[in-house]
Protein backbone atom coordinates (compact mmCIF):
# COMPACT_ATOMS: atom_id res chain seq x y z
CA UNK A 1 0.00 0.00 0.00
CA UNK A 2 1.24 3.44 -0.92
CA UNK A 3 -0.06 6.65 0.50
CA UNK A 4 -0.22 9.98 -1.30
CA UNK A 5 -1.75 13.35 -0.55
CA UNK A 6 -3.81 14.34 -3.61
CA UNK A 7 -4.78 17.77 -2.31
CA UNK A 8 -3.48 20.01 0.42
CA UNK A 9 -4.57 23.58 1.09
CA UNK A 10 -3.63 25.83 3.99
CA UNK A 11 -6.18 27.33 6.35
CA UNK A 12 -5.56 30.32 8.55
CA UNK A 13 -6.84 28.87 11.84
CA UNK A 14 -7.56 25.21 11.18
CA UNK A 15 -5.09 22.54 10.16
CA UNK A 16 -4.30 22.12 6.46
CA UNK A 17 -7.11 20.54 4.46
CA UNK A 18 -5.65 17.38 2.99
CA UNK A 19 -7.04 14.45 1.09
CA UNK A 20 -5.18 11.16 1.25
CA UNK A 21 -5.31 8.42 -1.32
CA UNK A 22 -4.07 4.86 -0.90
CA UNK A 23 -2.96 2.73 -3.81
CA UNK A 24 -2.59 -1.03 -4.08
CA UNK A 25 -0.99 -3.10 -6.80
CA UNK A 26 1.20 -1.76 -9.59
CA UNK A 27 0.89 -0.65 -13.16
CA UNK A 28 -2.21 0.12 -15.15
CA UNK A 29 -4.94 2.04 -13.35
CA UNK A 30 -7.85 -0.36 -12.88
CA UNK A 31 -10.25 0.86 -10.21
CA UNK A 32 -10.86 3.87 -7.99
CA UNK A 33 -12.99 3.76 -4.84
CA UNK A 34 -14.26 6.96 -3.21
CA UNK A 35 -15.76 7.06 0.27
CA UNK A 36 -17.58 9.89 2.03
CA UNK A 37 -18.06 13.22 0.31
CA UNK A 38 -20.24 14.69 3.09
CA UNK A 39 -19.38 15.29 6.70
CA UNK A 40 -22.06 12.96 8.06
CA UNK A 41 -21.24 9.98 5.86
CA UNK A 42 -19.69 7.98 8.68
CA UNK A 43 -20.77 4.65 7.25
CA UNK A 44 -19.17 5.51 3.91
CA UNK A 45 -15.77 6.36 5.40
CA UNK A 46 -16.06 3.27 7.62
CA UNK A 47 -16.72 1.10 4.55
CA UNK A 48 -13.64 2.57 2.89
CA UNK A 49 -11.51 1.86 5.92
CA UNK A 50 -12.71 -1.76 5.86
CA UNK A 51 -11.99 -2.03 2.14
CA UNK A 52 -8.54 -0.62 2.79
CA UNK A 53 -7.86 -3.26 5.45
CA UNK A 54 -9.08 -6.02 3.14
CA UNK A 55 -6.95 -4.82 0.21
CA UNK A 56 -3.91 -4.54 2.45
CA UNK A 57 -4.36 -8.19 3.43
CA UNK A 58 -4.98 -9.30 -0.14
CA UNK A 59 -1.94 -7.42 -1.37
CA UNK A 60 0.21 -9.10 1.28
CA UNK A 61 -1.15 -12.47 0.13
CA UNK A 62 -0.11 -11.68 -3.48
CA UNK A 63 -3.70 -11.68 -4.69
CA UNK A 64 -3.39 -8.69 -7.03
CA UNK A 65 -3.17 -9.50 -10.71
CA UNK A 66 -0.15 -8.22 -12.61
CA UNK A 67 -0.31 -4.67 -13.92
CA UNK A 68 -3.43 -3.68 -11.96
CA UNK A 69 -3.50 -0.67 -9.68
CA UNK A 70 -6.36 0.35 -7.35
CA UNK A 71 -6.83 3.65 -5.56
CA UNK A 72 -8.94 4.25 -2.44
CA UNK A 73 -9.86 7.76 -1.26
CA UNK A 74 -11.65 7.37 2.09
CA UNK A 75 -13.04 10.90 2.34
CA UNK A 76 -13.33 14.05 0.25
CA UNK A 77 -14.43 16.16 3.19
CA UNK A 78 -12.58 15.61 6.48
CA UNK A 79 -13.03 19.29 7.42
CA UNK A 80 -16.81 18.94 7.69
CA UNK A 81 -16.70 15.52 9.34
CA UNK A 82 -14.56 16.94 12.13
CA UNK A 83 -17.21 19.50 13.01
CA UNK A 84 -20.29 17.33 12.50
CA UNK A 85 -21.54 19.23 9.47
CA UNK A 86 -22.89 17.57 6.32
CA UNK A 87 -21.72 20.16 3.80
CA UNK A 88 -18.71 22.45 3.43
CA UNK A 89 -17.63 24.07 6.68
CA UNK A 90 -17.87 27.71 5.59
CA UNK A 91 -20.38 28.13 2.77
CA UNK A 92 -22.42 24.91 3.19
CA UNK A 93 -21.89 23.87 -0.43
CA UNK A 94 -21.92 20.19 -1.35
CA UNK A 95 -18.73 18.79 -2.89
CA UNK A 96 -20.84 16.10 -4.58
CA UNK A 97 -22.71 18.83 -6.47
CA UNK A 98 -19.52 20.39 -7.85
CA UNK A 99 -18.17 17.84 -10.31
CA UNK A 100 -16.31 17.90 -12.63
CA UNK A 101 -15.12 20.92 -10.68
CA UNK A 102 -13.32 24.08 -11.71
CA UNK A 103 -9.69 24.58 -10.73
CA UNK A 104 -10.02 28.39 -10.72
CA UNK A 105 -13.44 28.48 -9.07
CA UNK A 106 -14.69 28.55 -5.51
CA UNK A 107 -13.33 26.32 -2.77
CA UNK A 108 -15.50 23.23 -3.23
CA UNK A 109 -15.26 23.56 -7.03
CA UNK A 110 -11.48 23.44 -6.63
CA UNK A 111 -11.67 20.39 -4.38
CA UNK A 112 -13.92 18.63 -6.89
CA UNK A 113 -11.55 19.58 -9.74
CA UNK A 114 -8.49 18.29 -7.90
CA UNK A 115 -10.25 15.03 -7.06
CA UNK A 116 -11.69 14.56 -10.55
CA UNK A 117 -8.28 15.14 -12.11
CA UNK A 118 -7.08 12.07 -10.18
CA UNK A 119 -10.10 9.76 -10.27
CA UNK A 120 -11.00 10.48 -13.88
CA UNK A 121 -7.99 8.46 -15.05
CA UNK A 122 -9.52 5.20 -13.83
CA UNK A 123 -11.68 3.07 -16.14
CA UNK A 124 -13.89 1.89 -13.26
CA UNK A 125 -15.14 3.94 -10.31
CA UNK A 126 -17.08 2.97 -7.20
CA UNK A 127 -18.52 5.62 -4.93
CA UNK A 128 -19.94 4.83 -1.50
CA UNK A 129 -22.98 7.06 -1.45
CA UNK A 130 -25.76 7.98 0.93
CA UNK A 131 -29.43 8.96 0.95
CA UNK A 132 -30.38 12.40 2.24
CA UNK A 133 -33.04 11.07 4.61
CA UNK A 134 -32.39 9.14 7.82
CA UNK A 135 -33.09 5.47 7.38
CA UNK A 136 -31.80 2.14 6.21
CA UNK A 137 -31.53 0.73 2.70
CA UNK A 138 -31.00 -2.72 1.36
CA UNK A 139 -27.42 -2.93 0.11
CA UNK A 140 -27.57 -2.24 -3.61
CA UNK A 141 -25.80 -0.83 -6.62
CA UNK A 142 -27.23 2.28 -8.23
CA UNK A 143 -26.45 3.54 -11.69
CA UNK A 144 -27.66 6.80 -13.16
CA UNK A 145 -29.20 6.44 -16.58
CA UNK A 146 -26.90 8.46 -18.84
CA UNK A 147 -26.82 6.19 -21.85
CA UNK A 148 -23.36 5.02 -20.82
CA UNK A 149 -24.44 2.78 -17.93
CA UNK A 150 -24.43 -0.99 -18.22
CA UNK A 151 -26.32 -2.64 -15.35
CA UNK A 152 -25.26 -6.10 -16.50
CA UNK A 153 -21.69 -5.32 -15.51
CA UNK A 154 -22.90 -4.53 -11.97
CA UNK A 155 -23.83 -8.17 -11.51
CA UNK A 156 -20.17 -8.73 -10.64
CA UNK A 157 -20.77 -7.22 -7.19
CA UNK A 158 -22.99 -10.18 -6.36
CA UNK A 159 -25.45 -7.94 -4.51
CA UNK A 160 -29.13 -8.81 -4.78
CA UNK A 161 -30.28 -5.49 -6.26
CA UNK A 162 -29.16 -3.25 -9.11
CA UNK A 163 -31.14 -0.04 -9.50
CA UNK A 164 -31.13 2.33 -12.46
CA UNK A 165 -32.34 5.85 -11.80
CA UNK A 166 -33.17 8.68 -14.18
CA UNK A 167 -30.92 11.73 -13.60
CA UNK A 168 -32.40 14.82 -12.03
CA UNK A 169 -30.92 18.24 -12.82
CA UNK A 170 -28.71 18.22 -9.72
CA UNK A 171 -27.28 14.82 -10.68
CA UNK A 172 -25.35 16.40 -13.52
CA UNK A 173 -22.91 17.79 -10.95
CA UNK A 174 -22.33 14.55 -9.02
CA UNK A 175 -19.19 12.42 -9.20
CA UNK A 176 -21.08 9.37 -10.46
CA UNK A 177 -22.69 11.23 -13.37
CA UNK A 178 -19.45 12.91 -14.43
CA UNK A 179 -17.48 9.72 -14.15
CA UNK A 180 -19.91 8.16 -16.62
CA UNK A 181 -19.90 11.13 -18.97
CA UNK A 182 -16.10 10.99 -19.03
CA UNK A 183 -16.21 7.29 -19.84
CA UNK A 184 -15.53 5.68 -16.49
CA UNK A 185 -17.83 2.78 -15.58
CA UNK A 186 -19.35 4.27 -12.44
CA UNK A 187 -21.22 2.50 -9.67
CA UNK A 188 -22.79 3.88 -6.51
CA UNK A 189 -22.78 1.37 -3.69
CA UNK A 190 -25.35 1.86 -0.92
CA UNK A 191 -24.59 -0.24 2.14
CA UNK A 192 -27.63 0.61 4.27
CA UNK A 193 -26.92 3.55 6.56
CA UNK A 194 -25.31 7.01 6.56
CA UNK A 195 -24.82 8.62 9.96
CA UNK A 196 -24.90 5.31 11.84
CA UNK A 197 -22.21 2.68 11.46
CA UNK A 198 -23.41 -0.73 10.36
CA UNK A 199 -20.62 -3.30 10.65
CA UNK A 200 -22.75 -5.88 8.89
CA UNK A 201 -23.53 -3.47 6.05
CA UNK A 202 -19.86 -2.62 5.66
CA UNK A 203 -18.88 -6.29 5.52
CA UNK A 204 -21.45 -6.88 2.78
CA UNK A 205 -19.95 -3.96 0.85
CA UNK A 206 -16.36 -5.13 1.29
CA UNK A 207 -17.25 -8.64 0.12
CA UNK A 208 -19.08 -7.14 -2.86
CA UNK A 209 -16.07 -5.01 -3.82
CA UNK A 210 -13.72 -8.00 -3.55
CA UNK A 211 -16.03 -10.11 -5.72
CA UNK A 212 -16.27 -7.30 -8.27
CA UNK A 213 -12.46 -7.03 -8.39
CA UNK A 214 -12.08 -10.78 -8.95
CA UNK A 215 -14.67 -10.76 -11.74
CA UNK A 216 -12.88 -7.81 -13.37
CA UNK A 217 -9.48 -9.53 -13.20
CA UNK A 218 -8.00 -7.11 -10.72
CA UNK A 219 -7.69 -9.78 -8.02
CA UNK A 220 -6.85 -13.44 -8.44
CA UNK A 221 -9.28 -15.97 -7.09
CA UNK A 222 -12.68 -17.49 -7.52
CA UNK A 223 -15.66 -15.24 -6.93
CA UNK A 224 -17.96 -16.14 -4.07
CA UNK A 225 -21.42 -17.36 -5.10
CA UNK A 226 -23.68 -14.43 -5.97
CA UNK A 227 -27.16 -13.74 -4.75
CA UNK A 228 -30.08 -13.85 -7.18
CA UNK A 229 -30.02 -10.41 -8.77
CA UNK A 230 -32.98 -8.18 -9.52
CA UNK A 231 -32.33 -5.28 -11.87
CA UNK A 232 -35.04 -2.65 -11.76
CA UNK A 233 -35.78 1.02 -12.22
CA UNK A 234 -35.85 3.26 -9.14
CA UNK A 235 -39.37 4.36 -10.04
CA UNK A 236 -40.50 0.75 -9.70
CA UNK A 237 -40.12 1.09 -5.94
CA UNK A 238 -43.43 1.73 -4.23
CA UNK A 239 -43.15 4.82 -2.02
CA UNK A 240 -45.26 4.84 1.13
CA UNK A 241 -45.87 8.44 2.18
CA UNK A 242 -47.04 9.55 5.58
CA UNK A 243 -50.08 11.78 6.05
CA UNK A 244 -49.29 12.99 9.57
CA UNK A 245 -46.32 14.38 11.48
CA UNK A 246 -45.30 13.15 14.93
CA UNK A 247 -43.17 10.66 16.79
CA UNK A 248 -42.30 7.76 14.55
CA UNK A 249 -42.20 4.11 15.52
CA UNK A 250 -41.34 1.30 13.10
CA UNK A 251 -43.21 -1.97 13.52
CA UNK A 252 -41.25 -4.10 11.04
CA UNK A 253 -37.53 -4.69 10.64
CA UNK A 254 -35.58 -3.55 7.63
CA UNK A 255 -35.52 -6.17 4.87
CA UNK A 256 -38.77 -7.72 6.11
CA UNK A 257 -41.11 -9.40 3.68
CA UNK A 258 -44.49 -7.75 4.10
CA UNK A 259 -48.00 -8.31 2.82
CA UNK A 260 -50.58 -5.86 1.54
CA UNK A 261 -52.44 -4.29 4.44
CA UNK A 262 -49.78 -5.11 7.02
CA UNK A 263 -49.10 -2.40 9.61
CA UNK A 264 -45.58 -1.06 9.08
CA UNK A 265 -45.25 1.91 11.43
CA UNK A 266 -47.13 4.20 13.76
CA UNK A 267 -47.08 7.97 14.04
CA UNK A 268 -47.89 9.15 17.54
CA UNK A 269 -48.92 12.54 18.90
CA UNK A 270 -45.85 13.51 20.94
CA UNK A 271 -47.90 15.16 23.70
CA UNK A 272 -50.96 12.94 24.06
CA UNK A 273 -49.64 9.60 22.90
CA UNK A 274 -52.62 9.13 20.59
CA UNK A 275 -51.90 7.17 17.43
CA UNK A 276 -52.34 9.68 14.63
CA UNK A 277 -51.64 7.30 11.80
CA UNK A 278 -50.81 3.68 11.18
CA UNK A 279 -48.75 3.23 8.04
CA UNK A 280 -49.83 0.16 6.06
CA UNK A 281 -48.14 -1.69 3.26
CA UNK A 282 -49.97 -1.11 -0.03
CA UNK A 283 -48.63 -4.34 -1.58
CA UNK A 284 -46.82 -7.59 -1.00
CA UNK A 285 -43.08 -7.09 -1.17
CA UNK A 286 -39.77 -6.50 0.56
CA UNK A 287 -38.89 -3.41 2.62
CA UNK A 288 -36.21 -1.80 0.48
CA UNK A 289 -35.94 1.45 2.51
CA UNK A 290 -37.16 2.10 6.01
CA UNK A 291 -37.24 5.59 7.54
CA UNK A 292 -35.59 5.68 10.95
CA UNK A 293 -35.71 8.82 13.07
CA UNK A 294 -37.66 9.80 16.18
CA UNK A 295 -39.65 12.52 14.38
CA UNK A 296 -41.32 12.35 11.01
CA UNK A 297 -43.05 14.96 8.84
CA UNK A 298 -46.19 14.49 6.83
CA UNK A 299 -45.55 13.64 3.16
CA UNK A 300 -42.36 11.79 4.02
CA UNK A 301 -41.29 8.56 2.35
CA UNK A 302 -41.45 6.26 5.33
CA UNK A 303 -40.93 3.11 3.26
CA UNK A 304 -39.91 2.10 -0.20
CA UNK A 305 -41.20 -1.34 -1.05
CA UNK A 306 -40.03 -3.60 -3.81
CA UNK A 307 -43.18 -5.38 -4.90
CA UNK A 308 -43.15 -9.12 -5.39
CA UNK A 309 -44.70 -8.66 -8.82
CA UNK A 310 -42.54 -5.70 -9.93
Amino acid at each position, binding site marked *: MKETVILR*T*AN*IYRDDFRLRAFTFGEGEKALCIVGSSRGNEYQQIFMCSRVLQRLKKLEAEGRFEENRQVMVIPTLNPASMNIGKRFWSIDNTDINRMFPGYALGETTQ*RIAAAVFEVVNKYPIGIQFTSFY*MPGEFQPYIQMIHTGYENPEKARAFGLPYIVVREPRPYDTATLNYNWQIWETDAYSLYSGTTAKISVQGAEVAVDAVERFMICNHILKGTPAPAADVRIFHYDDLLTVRTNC*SGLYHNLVPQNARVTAGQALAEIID*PCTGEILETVYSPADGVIFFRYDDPLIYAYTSSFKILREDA
Partner: protein
Amino acid sequence: MLEDIVSIPLPVEETLRIRKNVIRNGEGKRICVVTGIHGDELEGQYVCFLLTRILNRNPELLHGSVEIYPAVNPLGIGSIQRGIPGFDLDMNRTFPGSDTGVMTEFVASALVNDLAGADLVFDIHASNIFLTEIPQVRINELHRDTLVPLARQANVDLVWVHGNSTVLESTLAYSLNAIGTPCLVVEMGVGMRLTGEYGQQLTTGILNLMRVLGIWDGDVQPVSTPIVADTEDEVIFLNARCSGMFMKTKRHGSWVKKGETVGYVFDPFQGKVLEYVNAEKSGLLFTIREYPLVDEGSLMGRILVGGGAAR
Protein backbone atom coordinates in the same frame (compact mmCIF):
# COMPACT_ATOMS: atom_id res chain seq x y z
CA MET B 1 -56.34 38.99 2.59
CA LEU B 2 -54.01 36.28 3.86
CA GLU B 3 -54.34 32.90 2.17
CA ASP B 4 -52.60 29.61 2.95
CA ILE B 5 -50.72 28.05 0.04
CA VAL B 6 -49.53 25.15 2.15
CA SER B 7 -50.58 24.05 5.62
CA ILE B 8 -48.84 20.98 7.02
CA PRO B 9 -48.85 19.97 10.70
CA LEU B 10 -45.33 19.59 12.08
CA PRO B 11 -44.50 16.85 14.58
CA VAL B 12 -44.85 18.88 17.79
CA GLU B 13 -47.50 21.56 18.41
CA GLU B 14 -46.89 23.63 15.26
CA THR B 15 -48.17 23.92 11.71
CA LEU B 16 -46.02 24.84 8.72
CA ARG B 17 -47.91 27.53 6.82
CA ILE B 18 -46.79 29.21 3.62
CA ARG B 19 -49.00 32.21 3.12
CA LYS B 20 -49.57 34.99 0.68
CA ASN B 21 -51.23 38.36 1.02
CA VAL B 22 -53.64 38.95 -1.85
CA ILE B 23 -54.36 42.60 -2.60
CA ARG B 24 -56.94 42.88 -5.33
CA ASN B 25 -59.00 45.58 -6.95
CA GLY B 26 -60.78 44.74 -10.14
CA GLU B 27 -60.13 42.00 -12.65
CA GLY B 28 -56.82 43.14 -14.14
CA LYS B 29 -53.52 41.35 -14.44
CA ARG B 30 -51.77 39.56 -11.56
CA ILE B 31 -48.22 40.06 -10.36
CA CYS B 32 -46.57 38.08 -7.57
CA VAL B 33 -43.69 39.04 -5.30
CA VAL B 34 -41.94 36.02 -3.81
CA THR B 35 -39.07 36.06 -1.35
CA GLY B 36 -37.47 34.01 1.40
CA ILE B 37 -36.68 30.85 -0.57
CA HIS B 38 -33.33 31.09 1.18
CA GLY B 39 -33.94 31.64 4.85
CA ASP B 40 -30.84 33.81 5.32
CA GLU B 41 -31.80 36.33 2.60
CA LEU B 42 -34.01 39.05 4.04
CA GLU B 43 -33.75 41.99 1.62
CA GLY B 44 -37.11 41.08 0.07
CA GLN B 45 -38.84 41.55 3.44
CA TYR B 46 -38.50 45.31 3.20
CA VAL B 47 -39.80 45.33 -0.37
CA CYS B 48 -42.89 43.37 0.72
CA PHE B 49 -43.44 45.85 3.56
CA LEU B 50 -43.07 48.94 1.38
CA LEU B 51 -45.20 47.60 -1.45
CA THR B 52 -48.00 46.41 0.84
CA ARG B 53 -48.05 49.74 2.65
CA ILE B 54 -48.33 51.68 -0.60
CA LEU B 55 -51.12 49.42 -1.86
CA ASN B 56 -52.98 49.57 1.45
CA ARG B 57 -52.89 53.36 1.38
CA ASN B 58 -53.98 53.65 -2.27
CA PRO B 59 -56.27 50.70 -3.03
CA GLU B 60 -58.20 52.64 -5.68
CA LEU B 61 -55.09 53.03 -7.83
CA LEU B 62 -54.76 49.27 -8.28
CA HIS B 63 -56.56 47.59 -11.17
CA GLY B 64 -55.66 43.96 -10.78
CA SER B 65 -54.01 41.71 -8.22
CA VAL B 66 -50.76 41.88 -6.32
CA GLU B 67 -49.91 38.73 -4.39
CA ILE B 68 -47.11 38.95 -1.86
CA TYR B 69 -45.33 35.84 -0.55
CA PRO B 70 -42.82 37.13 2.02
CA ALA B 71 -41.70 33.81 3.45
CA VAL B 72 -41.88 30.72 1.25
CA ASN B 73 -39.32 28.99 3.51
CA PRO B 74 -40.71 30.08 6.88
CA LEU B 75 -38.79 27.50 8.90
CA GLY B 76 -35.52 28.63 7.31
CA ILE B 77 -36.22 32.31 7.98
CA GLY B 78 -37.34 31.53 11.50
CA SER B 79 -34.14 29.69 12.30
CA ILE B 80 -31.65 31.78 10.24
CA GLN B 81 -30.91 28.87 7.93
CA ARG B 82 -30.44 29.13 4.18
CA GLY B 83 -31.94 25.76 3.33
CA ILE B 84 -34.98 23.87 4.54
CA PRO B 85 -34.36 22.91 8.18
CA GLY B 86 -34.72 19.24 8.92
CA PHE B 87 -33.68 18.31 5.39
CA ASP B 88 -30.60 20.49 4.82
CA LEU B 89 -31.86 20.97 1.27
CA ASP B 90 -31.62 24.11 -0.83
CA MET B 91 -35.28 24.88 -1.55
CA ASN B 92 -34.25 26.49 -4.83
CA ARG B 93 -33.08 23.10 -6.07
CA THR B 94 -36.42 21.36 -5.46
CA PHE B 95 -38.59 22.87 -8.21
CA PRO B 96 -40.92 22.15 -9.92
CA GLY B 97 -41.57 19.57 -7.20
CA SER B 98 -44.32 16.97 -7.25
CA ASP B 99 -47.76 16.91 -5.66
CA THR B 100 -47.27 13.21 -4.92
CA GLY B 101 -43.70 13.66 -3.70
CA VAL B 102 -42.17 14.05 -0.27
CA MET B 103 -42.79 17.17 1.80
CA THR B 104 -40.18 19.36 0.12
CA GLU B 105 -41.38 18.37 -3.34
CA PHE B 106 -45.02 18.80 -2.32
CA VAL B 107 -44.33 22.32 -1.04
CA ALA B 108 -42.40 23.22 -4.21
CA SER B 109 -45.19 21.92 -6.39
CA ALA B 110 -47.85 23.80 -4.43
CA LEU B 111 -45.90 27.03 -4.84
CA VAL B 112 -45.40 26.59 -8.58
CA ASN B 113 -49.07 25.73 -9.06
CA ASP B 114 -50.10 28.81 -7.12
CA LEU B 115 -47.83 31.13 -9.12
CA ALA B 116 -48.56 29.58 -12.51
CA GLY B 117 -50.42 31.89 -14.84
CA ALA B 118 -49.33 35.12 -13.18
CA ASP B 119 -48.48 37.92 -15.59
CA LEU B 120 -45.18 38.55 -13.78
CA VAL B 121 -43.36 37.07 -10.80
CA PHE B 122 -40.49 38.63 -8.88
CA ASP B 123 -38.28 36.17 -6.99
CA ILE B 124 -36.22 38.37 -4.67
CA HIS B 125 -32.89 37.13 -3.31
CA ALA B 126 -30.04 38.73 -1.39
CA SER B 127 -27.00 36.85 -2.69
CA ASN B 128 -25.94 35.17 0.58
CA ILE B 129 -24.22 36.12 3.82
CA PHE B 130 -20.84 36.24 2.08
CA LEU B 131 -21.41 38.70 -0.78
CA THR B 132 -23.00 42.09 -1.31
CA GLU B 133 -24.57 42.83 -4.67
CA ILE B 134 -25.83 45.91 -6.46
CA PRO B 135 -29.52 45.57 -7.37
CA GLN B 136 -29.65 43.32 -10.41
CA VAL B 137 -31.88 40.98 -12.34
CA ARG B 138 -30.41 37.66 -13.46
CA ILE B 139 -31.84 36.02 -16.55
CA ASN B 140 -31.19 32.62 -18.05
CA GLU B 141 -30.26 33.09 -21.71
CA LEU B 142 -33.07 30.71 -22.68
CA HIS B 143 -35.62 33.33 -21.58
CA ARG B 144 -33.78 36.44 -22.74
CA ASP B 145 -36.34 37.63 -25.26
CA THR B 146 -39.25 37.60 -22.83
CA LEU B 147 -37.49 38.83 -19.72
CA VAL B 148 -34.93 41.46 -20.74
CA PRO B 149 -37.58 43.99 -21.83
CA LEU B 150 -39.31 43.55 -18.47
CA ALA B 151 -36.07 43.71 -16.49
CA ARG B 152 -35.13 47.01 -18.14
CA GLN B 153 -38.18 48.54 -16.44
CA ALA B 154 -37.42 47.13 -12.96
CA ASN B 155 -35.24 50.04 -11.75
CA VAL B 156 -32.22 47.82 -11.12
CA ASP B 157 -28.62 48.77 -11.86
CA LEU B 158 -27.69 45.66 -13.81
CA VAL B 159 -29.38 42.98 -15.89
CA TRP B 160 -27.14 39.93 -16.18
CA VAL B 161 -28.05 37.43 -18.89
CA HIS B 162 -26.12 34.28 -18.01
CA GLY B 163 -25.59 30.96 -19.70
CA ASN B 164 -27.89 28.01 -19.12
CA SER B 165 -26.85 25.29 -16.69
CA THR B 166 -28.63 22.01 -16.12
CA VAL B 167 -28.35 22.45 -12.34
CA LEU B 168 -30.37 25.67 -12.56
CA GLU B 169 -33.29 23.78 -14.02
CA SER B 170 -34.34 23.00 -10.43
CA THR B 171 -34.93 26.66 -9.55
CA LEU B 172 -38.28 28.35 -9.08
CA ALA B 173 -37.54 30.88 -11.81
CA TYR B 174 -36.62 28.25 -14.38
CA SER B 175 -39.70 26.19 -13.56
CA LEU B 176 -42.00 29.18 -13.94
CA ASN B 177 -40.40 30.53 -17.10
CA ALA B 178 -40.51 27.04 -18.60
CA ILE B 179 -44.31 26.99 -18.28
CA GLY B 180 -44.70 30.49 -19.68
CA THR B 181 -45.04 32.42 -16.41
CA PRO B 182 -42.43 35.18 -16.62
CA CYS B 183 -40.24 35.33 -13.52
CA LEU B 184 -37.51 37.86 -12.81
CA VAL B 185 -34.83 36.82 -10.31
CA VAL B 186 -33.61 39.83 -8.34
CA GLU B 187 -30.36 39.74 -6.39
CA MET B 188 -29.49 42.71 -4.20
CA GLY B 189 -27.77 43.59 -0.96
CA VAL B 190 -26.44 40.95 1.37
CA GLY B 191 -27.75 38.05 3.45
CA MET B 192 -29.05 38.55 6.99
CA ARG B 193 -29.37 42.32 6.56
CA LEU B 194 -31.76 44.91 5.15
CA THR B 195 -30.56 47.67 2.84
CA GLY B 196 -33.16 50.42 2.93
CA GLU B 197 -32.25 52.19 -0.29
CA TYR B 198 -32.26 48.96 -2.28
CA GLY B 199 -35.68 48.06 -0.95
CA GLN B 200 -37.00 51.44 -2.01
CA GLN B 201 -35.30 51.20 -5.40
CA LEU B 202 -36.83 47.82 -6.21
CA THR B 203 -40.25 48.81 -4.89
CA THR B 204 -40.19 51.70 -7.38
CA GLY B 205 -39.27 49.21 -10.09
CA ILE B 206 -42.16 46.90 -9.19
CA LEU B 207 -44.61 49.81 -9.23
CA ASN B 208 -43.21 50.88 -12.59
CA LEU B 209 -43.76 47.41 -14.04
CA MET B 210 -47.27 47.40 -12.57
CA ARG B 211 -47.82 50.62 -14.49
CA VAL B 212 -46.42 49.08 -17.65
CA LEU B 213 -48.76 46.12 -17.20
CA GLY B 214 -51.68 48.48 -16.73
CA ILE B 215 -52.59 47.67 -13.15
CA TRP B 216 -51.24 50.75 -11.34
CA ASP B 217 -52.44 54.31 -11.79
CA GLY B 218 -50.30 55.88 -9.09
CA ASP B 219 -47.32 58.13 -9.61
CA VAL B 220 -44.01 56.35 -10.03
CA GLN B 221 -40.62 57.97 -9.68
CA PRO B 222 -38.46 57.83 -12.83
CA VAL B 223 -36.59 54.54 -13.12
CA SER B 224 -32.95 54.20 -14.04
CA THR B 225 -31.68 52.46 -17.15
CA PRO B 226 -29.72 49.36 -16.21
CA ILE B 227 -26.54 48.06 -17.75
CA VAL B 228 -27.48 44.92 -19.67
CA ALA B 229 -24.69 42.37 -19.58
CA ASP B 230 -25.30 39.76 -22.21
CA THR B 231 -23.62 36.40 -22.42
CA GLU B 232 -20.91 37.72 -24.70
CA ASP B 233 -19.85 40.19 -22.02
CA GLU B 234 -17.21 39.08 -19.63
CA VAL B 235 -17.60 38.71 -15.91
CA ILE B 236 -14.32 38.35 -14.03
CA PHE B 237 -14.48 36.35 -10.81
CA LEU B 238 -12.03 37.30 -8.07
CA ASN B 239 -11.17 34.22 -6.01
CA ALA B 240 -8.93 34.11 -2.93
CA ARG B 241 -5.49 32.65 -3.48
CA CYS B 242 -5.06 31.83 0.21
CA SER B 243 -6.96 31.50 3.48
CA GLY B 244 -7.24 34.54 5.74
CA MET B 245 -9.40 37.54 6.55
CA PHE B 246 -10.63 39.78 3.75
CA MET B 247 -10.87 43.56 4.09
CA LYS B 248 -12.66 45.29 1.24
CA THR B 249 -11.36 48.65 0.08
CA LYS B 250 -13.89 49.24 -2.70
CA ARG B 251 -17.64 49.36 -2.42
CA HIS B 252 -19.87 47.27 -4.63
CA GLY B 253 -21.04 49.39 -7.53
CA SER B 254 -17.62 51.06 -7.89
CA TRP B 255 -15.98 51.44 -11.27
CA VAL B 256 -12.47 50.08 -10.94
CA LYS B 257 -9.43 50.44 -13.16
CA LYS B 258 -7.15 47.62 -14.21
CA GLY B 259 -4.67 46.93 -11.41
CA GLU B 260 -6.67 48.78 -8.78
CA THR B 261 -6.91 47.11 -5.38
CA VAL B 262 -10.44 46.16 -4.32
CA GLY B 263 -9.41 44.55 -1.03
CA TYR B 264 -6.77 42.46 0.68
CA VAL B 265 -6.43 39.23 2.62
CA PHE B 266 -4.57 39.49 5.90
CA ASP B 267 -3.20 37.27 8.64
CA PRO B 268 -4.06 38.52 12.12
CA PHE B 269 -1.41 36.25 13.70
CA GLN B 270 1.49 37.78 11.82
CA GLY B 271 0.18 41.24 11.06
CA LYS B 272 0.87 40.58 7.37
CA VAL B 273 -1.04 41.19 4.19
CA LEU B 274 -1.16 37.81 2.45
CA GLU B 275 -2.70 38.95 -0.82
CA TYR B 276 -3.80 42.16 -2.47
CA VAL B 277 -6.89 41.59 -4.57
CA ASN B 278 -6.52 43.63 -7.74
CA ALA B 279 -8.83 44.16 -10.68
CA GLU B 280 -7.53 42.20 -13.65
CA LYS B 281 -9.40 44.54 -16.00
CA SER B 282 -11.29 47.81 -15.73
CA GLY B 283 -15.01 47.52 -15.15
CA LEU B 284 -17.92 47.57 -12.75
CA LEU B 285 -17.36 45.90 -9.40
CA PHE B 286 -20.91 44.64 -8.98
CA THR B 287 -20.22 42.08 -6.24
CA ILE B 288 -17.88 42.37 -3.27
CA ARG B 289 -17.21 39.98 -0.40
CA GLU B 290 -18.81 40.95 2.88
CA TYR B 291 -17.93 38.03 5.15
CA PRO B 292 -14.26 38.34 6.10
CA LEU B 293 -13.13 34.72 6.49
CA VAL B 294 -11.93 33.24 3.19
CA ASP B 295 -10.64 29.87 2.13
CA GLU B 296 -8.49 29.37 -0.93
CA GLY B 297 -10.97 29.81 -3.78
CA SER B 298 -13.56 31.85 -1.87
CA LEU B 299 -15.29 34.40 -4.09
CA MET B 300 -14.29 37.97 -3.21
CA GLY B 301 -15.87 39.91 -6.03
CA ARG B 302 -17.14 40.05 -9.58
CA ILE B 303 -16.24 42.66 -12.18
CA LEU B 304 -18.25 43.27 -15.33
CA VAL B 305 -16.00 44.16 -18.24
CA GLY B 306 -16.57 44.33 -21.96
CA GLY B 307 -19.50 45.66 -23.89
CA GLY B 308 -22.03 45.77 -21.08
CA ALA B 309 -19.76 47.76 -18.80
CA ALA B 310 -18.86 50.16 -21.59
CA ARG B 311 -22.46 51.03 -22.41
